[in-house]
């Protein structure tokens, strides 16, 4: 497997897209979309991250093994976040008090 050389123009294009993404996320933050605020911000951040991963970090041109590693690190991060959230988001479901009230 010989390595792929990404043309310079791609790098500049990605750089431009990242700057635009930053501008959009800053602009969007000044509007209140209610519950969508976080979704908008995170969508932009994930897009920017994918650009960096795929082009700057050459994942787009890498072996399947690298894809598997990238996928698994997000998978494990999601395990950590989501399974912990199952606890915090459902603490109040079971009766009003049992299982815990947060206070202070």
């Amino acid at each position: 497997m010989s390595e792929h050389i990404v043309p310079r123009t791609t790098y500049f294009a990605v750089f431009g897209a990242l700057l635009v993404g930053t501008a959009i996320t800053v602009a969007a933050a000044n509007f209140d979309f209610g519950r969508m605020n976080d979704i908008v911000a995170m969508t932009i951040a994930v897009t920017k991250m994918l650009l960096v991963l795929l082009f700057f970090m050459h994942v787009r041109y890498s072996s399947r093994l690298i894809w598997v590693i990238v996928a698994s690190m997000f998978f494990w991060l999601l395990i950590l976040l989501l399974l912990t959230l199952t606890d915090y988001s459902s603490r109040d479901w079971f009766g009003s008090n049992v299982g815990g009230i947060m206070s202070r």
Partner: protein
Amino acid sequence: MQSIPIPNISLPVPFSPEQASTFAPHVDALYVYLVTLTAFFTLLISAAIIFFAVKYRRRQAAELPRPIAGSMVLELTWTIIPLMIAMTIFVWGASIFFKAYRAPQQAMEVYVVGKQWMWKFQHQTGQREINELHVPVGARVKLTMTTEDVIHSFYVPAFRIKQDVVPGRYLQTWFEATKTGKFYLFCAEYCGTNHSGMGGYIYVMDQAAYQQWLAGGTGTESAASQGQKLFQQRGCASCHQVEAGGQQGLGPTLYGIFGKQQQIEGDGAVTVDEGYIRESILNPQAKIAAGFQNIMPTFQGQVSEEQVLQLVAYIRSLAPAGQQQGGAAAGAQTTSGPTTGGVPPQQQRSNPLHPSDVRQGNPAPQAPPAGGGNTGNANRQQ
């Protein structure tokens, strides 16, 4: 879940603590099931290994057995059957868990505060105890618990109940004792130096003895009336109305507020429960009732966890008769009167674990002589 009948076993199981609550037979039945399964599989595999080891022992140094690659049928068999057995355990275990965590609506309530290294109890009727809890047999007892310092765990082996208490939160557990007697209470979550000394007894008494015990206290006040005093002392009344129909003060009127939905500043509403009241006393800025100013000072550090619980009891009592939440089923009436003998709990040492290790300490400051409670000799090391 409740529709599934949970098996129980009332025969004594060897090497198990007494069965003294309604949960105990259920837990023991599951235990017997699990031990049977384990014994079966251990014997099965051990027998197979011993049989193979003898039958197929190496007889000649150079022998070369025929290789066997594997068998899909066998693999699937010993994947699926254990999985199904495991799921039966899961369902059984979960059904007991649900039962243990679904607190009954009508129950006698006791407030519990864990503290390095003692358990403090407060009855709705005012009795306070340290490292001892007197309860009537056959009554449902709901414990509302918190801790003043680190995490502790309320554990009564004979009742098969355990619940960690976490600082900053109220947690609940409940039991219904089925047997009179004296049962160990332990702290099961490691909590520091004298962790193994943080224990005592649960006294389960028949109704008559329990009423006698209740009457045995001198000058006991109900938790609510203690809370009422605090309410006055701390000047809460200058802002909060406590009577029906009175004029709204600077803070919300507290009459009848318990259990209601309260609109708060910003969005949303909260149910006024123990946790919300506690939060509002200690961290008043956190959730401000809609339409009020953020002017209430915090009482953090000025009232103890026990006193907060008394205030909670008082605010709960501010409702038309009959609508009070929960309700102390057994002995809700405030009792006070001369000591009539009965059970002399003062004789009981609170620390069952190591009598040699009991240190004489100062009386717990927040535990005035209360009915039947061990007061002075709590195993305090600060």
